[in-house]
């Protein structure tokens, strides 16, 4: 071939070489089509491990009972048995090391998540005793009268 063909071709080859070199340097070795094929599994494999190493905030549900047996038992026998400890006291993080003392959410806002009365036919919400938060002892904390761990409306002094 003649010179005028080779000269631009060399430039093209050089550009391609630069692109390939950049790609080899930039794209990690584990990048490629993995278990789910090219369409769904084209990714950097080590990212899966990065997600697995994401730090947990909530401890498992039975973690608290390891030390707080009494509280756990009281709660387990009450009507709030299905509510996890960390829903009001959490998340546990690395308690008892960090934080040393768990926060306690005593706000009305927490209680009325479930106990604000709504008309919800065809939902389990209808079966939960409810109040109108705008009228029911507005200035008081729920825990002033109600036992949050094992609430019982029948045993309350009205």
């Amino acid at each position, binding site marked *: 071939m003649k010179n005028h063909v080779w000269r631009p071709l060399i430039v093209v080859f050089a550009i391609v070489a630069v692109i390939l070199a950049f790609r080899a340097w930039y794209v990690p070795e584990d*990048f490629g089509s*993995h*278990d*789910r094929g090219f*369409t*769904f*599994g*084209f*990714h*950097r494999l080590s*990212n*899966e491990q*990065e*997600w*697995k*190493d*994401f*730090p*947990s*905030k*909530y401890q*498992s*549900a039975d973690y608290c009972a390891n030390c707080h047996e009494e509280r756990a038992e009281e709660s387990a026998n009450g009507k709030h048995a*299905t*509510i*996890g400890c*960390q*829903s009001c006291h*959490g*998340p546990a993080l690395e308690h008892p090391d960090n934080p040393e003392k768990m926060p306690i959410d005593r706000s009305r*806002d927490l209680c*009325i*998540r*479930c106990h*604000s009365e*709504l*008309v*919800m*036919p*065809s*939902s*389990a*919400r209808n079966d*939960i005793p409810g109040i109108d*938060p705008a009228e029911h002892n507005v200035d008081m904390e729920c825990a002033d009268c109600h036992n949050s761990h094992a609430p019982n409306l029948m045993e309350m002094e009205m």
Partner: protein
Amino acid sequence: MKRRDFLKNTAIFVTGAATVPAGLEFMTVKEALAATPDVRWGFLVDTHKCIGCGLCVKACKTENEIPLEANVSRTWVERYIIKKDGEVLIDSPKAALNGFTSKESDQNAAGMFKVDDEDIAQAFFVPKLCNHCDVPSCVQVCPVGATYQTKDGVVLVDRKWCIGCGYCVMGCPYAMRFFHPTEHVVDKCTFCYHRISNDENSACAQACPTGARVIGNLRDPEDPVSKTIMNERVGVLRSEYGTKPQIFYLGLNKEVR
């Protein structure tokens, strides 16, 4: 038929017939089983049990470091109020981060609507989260390979690789994806991949006080989620998109979108 044609046709037929079993032998049963992973995460939502407390949303945002007050969430709970005259009101104030505490339904620009108690025919809650589809349309549209599906069926986003083009945000028929306000990349429900990979429950399912949300392994026939899906009448959202969603709902009706 000439003898030459006969021989030619016979040769073609024999070659063809021999090709089929040759192709079938490509994969043995053992190989086929090995190719099927023994874990495929799926999710069951019982809309009858959901009480709209929003503890799942709070737990999810806390666990996964999504700013609480930012108006984005990996999961949310919708309230459906279906009136006796057929009108449907749907709302999800702050993704139900603080639960549903008011009888008023937030209809955005149209304002707050309060439906009279006696006008309500049906009212219920529907929790939503990423469907981790078998055919995830969001993954197909990613131009850089930043979002992908793992072997066990979880759709994840590579935060180092995402360029924030937003194709996947539009590609998801369920509007599950959003831009993370502080990470500045696309974010979505991971099924709490860090928890389920370490034998823990997902944050939302663990926080749910009524068991309306349960995560399970769809490959295990003894798993409670698999058992329910096999034995009960379950539905999925927007099956018409063909993405094969893997969140199964008990108690859906036609108003739920």
